[in-house]
């Protein structure tokens, strides 16, 4: 039979997959590996050619030095604060708007969707100034409000992504619920959102990373170094005629760690919603 032949040698597939993953993986690991290894090199070795791959002995003191050189803990707290507030806002607002664009058939839906896309087409260099003026008028310059409040009204990126995901969820469930008399809010909260958990995890991740690494926003709107974020703090390692490379790399490594932790947590296999209910409602032959 045909299937037997095609299912021929599963182990070969595994070996090839592993080979590709490891090979490409080394390539992809390079930047981070270099970052970490540079952070433990003595100053003289950092730009050496040929490069020093495994510094020995590793100079771990760049880490405590970096944490002391700038108010690292305070900046971390500030950045975390902004990120958490942002992620919450984005998940709440974007899920609502994406639901409207994906799951409710109403007249203005396409206009809103396409104008949403259109807002991303204008480069930020020219909208920076008018945006600044809006926030000045609101009296928010010097606070973290310009960095956090807009998240509660949705971002085009997250709405677009979530809308794409929601549109792959079959409508039979929500239609059935409507017939049963549920209102939209219930359908949104109890039926659609649980099915969209992987998508929500994805936009949370991107929202967090975006906020965490954001430089222009904090630079433009914060004027008190008690409020500064880590991305601004990284700049402190650079001065007019050079930089503290070792400490900069150490600080950058530390900055990347929370994202790695968050990534692993959000992407754990058990986090996805099981699609069994929807699958069962499908006809058996669709392929």
């Amino acid at each position, binding site marked *: 039979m045909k299937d037997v032949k095609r299912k021929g040698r599963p182990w070969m597939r595994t070996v090839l997959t592993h080979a590709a993953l490891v090979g490409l993986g080394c390539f992809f690991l390079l930047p981070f590996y270099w970052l970490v290894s540079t952070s433990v090199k003595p100053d003289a070795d*950092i*730009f050496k050619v040929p490069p020093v791959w495994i510094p020995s002995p590793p100079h771990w003191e760049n880490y405590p030095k970096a944490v002391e050189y700038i108010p690292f803990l305070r900046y971390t707290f500030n950045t975390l604060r902004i990120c958490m507030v942002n992620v919450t806002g984005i998940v709440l607002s974007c899920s609502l708007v994406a639901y409207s664009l994906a799951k409710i058939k109403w007249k203005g839906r396409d206009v809103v969707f396409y104008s949403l896309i259109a807002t991303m087409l204008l480069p930020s260099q020219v909208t920076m100034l008018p945006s600044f*003026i809006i926030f000045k008028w609101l009296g928010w310059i010097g606070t973290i409000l310009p960095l956090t409040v807009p998240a509660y009204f949705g971002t085009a990126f997250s709405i677009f992504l979530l809308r794409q995901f929601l549109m792959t969820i079959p409508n039979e469930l929500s239609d059935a619920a409507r017939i049963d008399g549920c209102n939209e809010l219930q359908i949104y909260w109890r039926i659609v959102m649980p099915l969209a958990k992987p998508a929500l995890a994805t936009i949370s991740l991107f929202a967090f990373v975006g906020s965490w690494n954001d430089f222009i926003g904090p630079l433009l709107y914060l004027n*008190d170094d008690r409020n500064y974020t880590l991305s601004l703090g990284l*700049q*402190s390692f650079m001065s007019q005629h050079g930089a503290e490379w070792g400490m900069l790399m150490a600080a950058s490594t530390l900055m990347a760690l929370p994202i790695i932790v968050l990534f692993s947590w959000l992407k754990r296999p058990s986090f996805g919603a099981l699609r069994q209910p929807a699958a069962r409602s499908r006809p058996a032959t669709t392929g």
Partner: protein
Amino acid sequence: MKRLTLWIGLIAIAGCGRVHTEGPVEVVYWTGWSGDEFKIQKQLVEKFNSTHPHIRVRIVCQFGNAGYEKVRIAIAGNATPDVMSTVWADELAGYAKRGVLLPLDELMARSGRSLEKEFTPGLRKSLRIDGKVYALAVTTNTSFIVYNKQIFRELGLDPDRPPRTVEELDRASDASVSMRKDGAIQRFGYVPNNLLTWVYVFGGRWYDPKADRVTANDPRNVAALKWMADYYRRFDSQAVRRFQSTFGNDATAQMPFFQGLISMWATGEWASAFLKRYAPDIEYGYFPLPIPKGGNPETTYCNGSVFVIPKASRHVREAWEFLNWLTSPEQVAYFCSKIGNVPPLLEVGDDPAFLSDPIMRFAVRLTRSEKAVGPPPIAIWPTYTREIARAEEAVLAGRRDPKVVLDNLQARMEKEYRRSKAELGQ
């Protein structure tokens, strides 16, 4: 539900957090210095605050290059500090002519300060725009060449008689060049750059104040560019380019001069600190930019951050009190000696802190040269410097003809300058 309440609670707490202080007048001071230099500035600010209890200066770091862009937006959005040093000398004319800065003449007169009497020649020329003083400085810089005496000796050149003319520079540089078997360059002499300054050395200039016109294609400018281009013509320009690309960052132990890969290094007064840190074993010397026949000896171009008071400053009197203090000899001496910059005040140059270091002493001497120049007082200068860099690259790397490129530059800048003058109503 519980989690939702928790979140809302956290967000509410997160949203708050602003502290107000009453009492002394708060002066907001933006600086572009970061890292160690910022820390020294902070020390000075604290000293000021403790000795002037009726004023409280709050220093805010606006990091590096990005800070200078933020200033544009802050000015346009009317959110400026009371005093700031996040303005390059290059940009000063642009801001001053647009009327966003406060002229300092009256304030200076009342405090008994004088630009002409106290500051170095380069700054005297660049801080006064349309007859008024718009900025002061606590640092200035110089350009000169540091050379490796050991390599000179190796090559049979007199290590105590560095080049004084460009012909001597050429000879020394060419002698230093050695190639690898595969045609790549192993060691070089002087890698030409900084057309902007060389033009002045050759006796040319970028702007003629008397005729009020840009002079990009002045024949002496062309001569300077041609001289630079000849370096690349004598050797394969791609090879020189590749060699240059290995230079990486100045502030590292791998900088070619520290490794003995170039025999001459175009630099400034910060060389002293770098040499001590990265290459304490090199026997070095230094000399001012060599001149061609009829050139200007001991020319140096002064750039750097300048201190301004925006027109929209809320506390002008207090801001000036701070600025006056910060630019007084004692403070300037402290700051410059700590960060390795050369002082802009004539009086401070005689301070033993600077006389003890030979390179510093030399740099101070250069700043006092009457041939020192600063940015010309035209609003389009930042654009102009960028175009000069592009022209330089087009000739050196792109092997275009110097005269053609500079004629081109002249045409473009003339147009820009005309447009800028029309726009500013001048």
